[in-house]
Every structure is written in structure tokens, then in C-alpha cells.
């Protein structure tokens, strides 16, 4: 027997090692899967939970946030909180605020960003007006007092970027037929998502205007869309030069459909320009 153990120890060791390694690797794989599930779930940031100014996009934020709470400590208005397990939606220990409770007061020195040791709150944010914590959306036009034709204006008045982030757009009140509607309109380029409008909405409980994550609150124009009144450069300038339709009697007669005779006018205009129609009072064109 001693001879057998003497002859085989390495085989036994190897067998045992492989068994142990398989056991611990399997255990770690199971635990790792659970942890990965946990990590994936933690990404589901609720819409009402707003990250502090300068926060990286959520996925990067969770790679960067130390969950130390230094931003919370340096927030002078107790706006920021660290998420508590089971009570708050964001990943446990990460900072957020709920606009309806305490909105961001948009401190000029941005102490939360200054306090962040890890860069989860991006130090390149130096002007709080450039913050992009979310986007206010007038979410219930049926109950917004201004939308009903009354003059509440509170969200507009409290907006730190009044007349930039929120404007009141005047329109005719069809219901009364005699009054105006001062519709609050949020402009995404200026809105920082501070949530002061949501906080101050006079409606009980839920606010008619809410700060939503930018990804939820904005649509994206298709790449080929073009607002002609904003961008006067023709879309296909370099590809096709369509003949310009000229005003005059020739444009809609059958002799010269499109305003031209059979032969195109010489584009070089050599020998002067000879329109294919007669302008009133100028005499007939020879051709």
C-alpha cells in the first residue's frame, strides 16, 4: 500500500488539484453570473432619479463612481443623496437627486463636481449653465394651468435660465375665443435639468412639468432631414443643378413646359439673355 501511494502521489495530487480547481471555478462562475446580473440590473436608472451635474453617461458613471458620497457632503442644499439599497432605484451608494423633493440649485462653483475624487462627475464642466442633468418636459398639458389658459407661470418664473430654457409662447385661446394661452415651452439646448420647475409646479403631488433623462425626453431627427428655414444651403447643391423655374407666361403653357422652349438657353449667356417669354410692356422677344 505504501508502495502504491508512493508510486502515485503525483497522479492523486493532479486529480485532487483538478477537482478542487473545477469546484472553485464552477462556484466562482455561478457567483460571477449572479454578480453580472446584479450589475446589469443596477444600470436601470429610474426616470425620476437624476444624476448630479457633470455625471458621465450611466454606463461610464458606474465604472467610475466610488460611492464615497463626497459630492453629497459638499452639496450645500442637501439636494444629493446616496441611493440606499431597496429604498431608492439607482445603483446602491451612487449619488442622485429627486427634483420634486429638492432640485439642484445650480451653484456657480459646482462643489459636487469639485469634490468628486474619481472623475465620475466630469471636471470639464466648469459652467453650471452647460450642465445636462436631464430635460424638463411639460408632461401633462391637460392639467398645466398655463396650458388651460390661466396665468400660473411658476415654472417659467423659477427657471434659472428664464426665457432661455423655458419661454412662454403666446397663442390664441380657442376655448374662450377671446383670451391668450401662455404655453410654457422648454428648449433642450438651454435646459440643464436642474428640476426647479418640477419642484415648484403648483399642482398637488405629481408635477405637470418633469425632468426626464435626456435619452427619454429627446427624439433625434433623421440624418437627411433639413429645416430649410434654418439652413438655406440647398441639400443637393453639388450633385444636381436643377434648372430654375422662371416666372412668366411660359411656365405653365404647353408650348414651353417648365418655361423653356425645345432648346435650352445657353447657360453661358453669351450674346445676352433672351428669355423665352414676354415680360409685360417690354415688347416681344425676337425668338
Amino acid at each position, binding site marked *: 500500500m505504501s508502495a502504491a501511494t508512493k508510486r502515485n502521489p503525483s497522479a492523486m495530487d493532479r486529480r485532487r488539484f483538478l477537482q478542487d480547481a473545477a469546484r*472553485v471555478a464552477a462556484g466562482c462562475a455561478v457567483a460571477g453570473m449572479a454578480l453580472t446580473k446584479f450589475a446589469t440590473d443596477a444600470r436601470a436608472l429610474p426616470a425620476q432619479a437624476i444624476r448630479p451635474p457633470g455625471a458621465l453617461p450611466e454606463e461610464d458613471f458606474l465604472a467610475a463612481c466610488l460611492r464615497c458620497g463626497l459630492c453629497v457632503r459638499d452639496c450645500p442644499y442637501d439636494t444629493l443623496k446616496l441611493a440606499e439599497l431597496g429604498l431608492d432605484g439607482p445603483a446602491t451608494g451612487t449619488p442622485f437627486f429627486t427634483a420634486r423633493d429638492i432640485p439642484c440649485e445650480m451653484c456657480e462653483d459646482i462643489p459636487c463636481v469639485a469634490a468628486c475624487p474619481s472623475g465620475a462627475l466630469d471636471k470639464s464642466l466648469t459652467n453650471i449653465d452647460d450642465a445636462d442633468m436631464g430635460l424638463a418636459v411639460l408632461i401633462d398639458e391637460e392639467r398645466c394651468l398655463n396650458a388651460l389658459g390661466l396665468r400660473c407661470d411658476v415654472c417659467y418664473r423659477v427657471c434659472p435660465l428664464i426665457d432661455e430654457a423655458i419661454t412662454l409662447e403666446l397663442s390664441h385661446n380657442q376655448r374662450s375665443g377671446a383670451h391668450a394661452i401662455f404655453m410654457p415651452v422648454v428648449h433642450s439646448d438651454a435646459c440643464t435639468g436642474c428640476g426647479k420647475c418640477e419642484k415648484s409646479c403648483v399642482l398637488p403631488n405629481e408635477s405637470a412639468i418633469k425632468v426626464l433623462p435626456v435619452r427619454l425626453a429627446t427624439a433625434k431627427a433623421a440624418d437627411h432631414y433639413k429645416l430649410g428655414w434654418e439652413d438655406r444651403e440647398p441639400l443637393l447643391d453639388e450633385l444636381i443643378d436643377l434648372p430654375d423655374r422662371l416666372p412668366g407666361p411660359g411656365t405653365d403653357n404647353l408650348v414651353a413646359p417648365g418655361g423653356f422652349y425645345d432648346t435650352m438657353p445657353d447657360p453661358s449667356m453669351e450674346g445676352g439673355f433672351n428669355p423665352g417669354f414676354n415680360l409685360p410692356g417690354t415688347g416681344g422677344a425676337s425668338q
Partner: protein
Amino acid sequence: MSETRKLPVGREAIDEKGWWKAHRFLVLRRLSQAVFLGLFMLGPWFGIWWVKGNLSASMTFNFLPLTDPFITVQMLAARHWPETTALIGAVIVAVAYALIGGRVYCSWVCPINPVTDGAHWLHDKLGMQKGWQPKRATRYWVMAMVLAVSALGGTVAWELVNPISMLHRGLIFGMGAAWSFVAAVFLFDLFVSRRGWCGHLCPVGAFYGLLGARSILRVSATKRADCDDCMDCFAVCPEMHVITPALRGTEEETPLILSADCTNCGRCVDVCAPDVFRFTTRFDETPAPARAARRKPKHQSTASRAA
């Protein structure tokens, strides 16, 4: 030997050295744990903001940044390069523990330590079986798993479940349901696995252990020749396998406890009536004669069973 076994662990040391000398490092350790937690609680409780943050990262006197190096490593695995502040903090902490022993964090600072020590105390009182004892190396596998999940998931993975952060941050910022993680560790250590969490699984301890593998501060069984085999040091040591090579070593083998697993808690120093152990540095070359050989095979088996 049967006589000494009748005595409760540590009784002999109290009788010979007095209560204080037999509990010195235990009391100091609890004090240290209380002080480290207390410094963080000064702010929320009394409005004295000397230290802000928590064990994950903190700022002391608005000047000294400290960052958990294990979180920093996970962050790097998740491909986020932190700001200089966090990096400096991590380097300071890493250097400090590399000098005094990485697992000093476990025994002198970590807020989970009183929880698992409490579980172990109750475990002893209830006379429970030691239960599931995973291999010592398991924690390194767990650590590797955590780093892998961090890298693949692009997130600081362990902080989603780390009971240390859950407890420490919870006490400072609000607990929520984080108690459940602390309770789970307590129950695990009590019913499932003796010394299971800190001794076998916790990847934070594994990381700090590696960090302090070459640390200066060490416990040494300098007077191992005086050992009377009472086994009290094995009974109190949370990582009892670290003692044997030093205590039972031969003349040529060092009496220093050099294992990365040793937490430098100093409880063995307390509990040893003949004062075999003491704190020293790894460069200490005081000659330490080995114990006279006695009843060797019998003892080995008893020791390993106790261990």
C-alpha cells in the same frame, strides 16, 4: 494536556499576565475599529467634518485623500482612468498597508470584523461544527472573478454587494436594506462556515493580503521554545494555519509569521501565557531556538484537527 484543555481559552494568560496584558491587542483593536468608524461619524452625528466620505474614498481635513485601492483596481479593470485625487488616495492607502501588513485593514479597520468576530464568538458558545470550509485560495478566485466581472461588465462590480461598504456607508449615509448583507455574512459565519467570510471568501481581504505580502510589521514566535502546547493561539487566531510554520518550525526556519493571510490582530500575543509571540519587523533576526521535539505525530494530528 488534558488539564490545559479544561481551562477556557485565555484563562492561563489572564492568570499569569493579568487581564489587561491578556486582552491588550483585542481592546486596542476594538478601539481602533471604533475610532475609524467614529471619525467618519463625527460629521453626520456632531457636524464635525474632519473626515468626509467613507472607506471607499474619503477626504480628511479637506487635504488628505484616501481611496480604497481594491475599488481603484476594479475601476481600472472597468476601463475608467480616475482623477488624480483618487489615484493619490489609492497610492497612499496601498503604501501604508504594504508597510504595516495588508490585512491590518481587516482586523483593525474593517467594520465587518466585529460582525464576523461576533458570529465566531456565538459559534463557539453554541458549540457548532466548523461546517463548510472552502480552500484558503478560494478568496483569490473570488477576487479574480470580481475583477473579471468588472472588466467584462465595465462596472465596479464588488461595490454592488460588498458587505463592508454596505455597512460602513449605511451607517454614515443611511442603511436602507443594506443590513441584509451584513446579516447574511453574520449568519453565514455562524451557521454555514466557521470564520468563513473573512477567512475564505472576502476578495477585499484577499487583495489586502496580497498588498501586504511583504509588509514590515510582523508577529514573530520568538520564544517558541517556551510553548507549552496549550493551543490557545490556534483557538483565537482567525487564520490559524499561519501560526504553524513559525511556531513549529525548526531551528533554521524563521519564527516570523510571514503568511499574507496573517491579519496582525495580535490576539495570539495576548492569549499566550508564556509570551511566545511579539510584534516585530520582518528583518528581526533574533535567534529563536525551536521547541524541543516532543510526542510529535500525536501532536501534529491534534493541532491540525484544532486548526
